[in-house]
């Protein structure tokens, strides 16, 4: 049963945030895959309007912009939850799992950004670990999101009063 609890003092589910997350995730996933030399090989960049996707500098730049937005969004969502939604919603196990996976994606991404800075040199093994784990956590996040979507599980569950 759906519980509509949005009143003047009780906020509803953060639908706008959810949409922003999905949009950011799509942009990051697309530009992230674009870091691998596959868009040109498989003709994606030949599709009218997608020529830019074969430009590694363009996809890299957009990926960074998306990452900045994602980090800001995560900070906003966390603060928003603790300040105004915690009284009305609790995090589900599915939510905790997704937050953990997303945090792992961000953490490995931060290391990748550090590695790209001038004068920061990681060992080849660690660089490879960071690259592969960033990809693996993103794939896990995507699969978990798909599973939650199919099973109808949500991040937040209303607290019955």
């Amino acid at each position: 049963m759906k519980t509509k609890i949005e009143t003047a003092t009780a906020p509803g589910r953060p639908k706008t945030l959810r949409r922003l997350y999905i949009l950011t995730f799509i942009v990051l996933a697309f530009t992230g895959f674009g870091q691998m030399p596959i868009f040109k090989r498989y003709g994606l960049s030949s599709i009218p309007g997608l020529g830019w996707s074969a430009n590694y500098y363009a996809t890299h730049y957009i990926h960074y912009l998306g990452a900045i937005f994602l980090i800001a969004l995560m900070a906003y969502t966390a603060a928003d939850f603790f300040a105004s939604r915690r009284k009305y919603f609790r995090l589900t196990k599915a939510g905790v799992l997704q937050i953990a996976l997303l945090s792992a994606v961000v953490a490995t991404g931060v290391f990748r950004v550090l590695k790209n800075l001038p004068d920061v040199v990681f060992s080849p093994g660690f660089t490879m670990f960071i690259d592969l784990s960033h990809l693996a956590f993103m794939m896990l996040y995507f699969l978990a999101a798909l599973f939650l979507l199919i099973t109808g599980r949500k991040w937040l569950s209303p607290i019955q009063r």
Partner: protein
Amino acid sequence: MEKGISRRSFLKSGLAAAGAAAASTVALPESVKGAKETELATLIDIRKCIGCEACVEACRDVNAGKYPVPSKPYPKMYPSSVKVSDWSGKKDVTDRLTPYNWVFIQHAQVVLKGKKEELTFPRRCMHCQNPPCADLCPWGAARKLDNGISVIHPDICLGGSKCKDVCPWKIPQRQTGVGLYLKILPSLGGNGVMYKCDRCYERVAKGELPACIEVCPEKVQKIGPREEILKEAKEIAREIGGYIYGADENGGTNTIYVSPVPFEELNKAIEKGDGKPHFKKVADSMAHVDNLAKAMVIAPFAGLAAAALKMVSFASKEKEGGK
């Protein structure tokens, strides 16, 4: 001690590699020994090069063991538009960069002091200070060493050629039929291994000179801490009214050329194309994303500030509603 290499920098950079250097036939300049925290740069004085290709031959001799030995027949590639890059039948090519030729001599007909002259100079990887090949390699196969040398690990590289696409000079060259991709999805992903000058990094680690520098009869090249190499390049340029390339190109490279003629003229005079790099001005490829990386530090605070603003707005609305 070589000109431009100070005793102070020698003492500063330490003696860690001295033992290894002692075992080598021709050692690195004193100041380079153990200079692990200093990026090494090479100075190429174009005036001195006679185009004898001794550097090319020495490079090929010393690095022959690293050259690709492809397995044939090559896997069928999907989609079929993906072309193989096969240089295994053209190993003798020395007039451009190939997987089997990591340095070549470029020629330029120029007018110098009113006279037509032919200048020659070695071309190879510039070893950028912030190399896009290493930064953007999706597998970490291309990387920059502490001493400023950029290398491509042949056991990790999948040959996607991204390093070449992002290199301002398109230096790395691919050989199909070799490397890790053969063990993963040879038809669907990867296409060999990328090869380029690694500035004889194993020799440098042992305190020896890169082969091209060691063998040059005219001492066209020298290697040392970047600051000192750049200082010396500027001194030469001042003395001869010459020009420098590499000080700022792509944010600064660890290969510095000094020329008696402007590099714009050299660039016009040289043959350019695949495996034949240009001498154009190059902006810092990674500058934009490096600035964005700094912005990432601010991102969580921006998110928190936005949430705080929302809370203040929400509280004031609630207060108004309560009145």
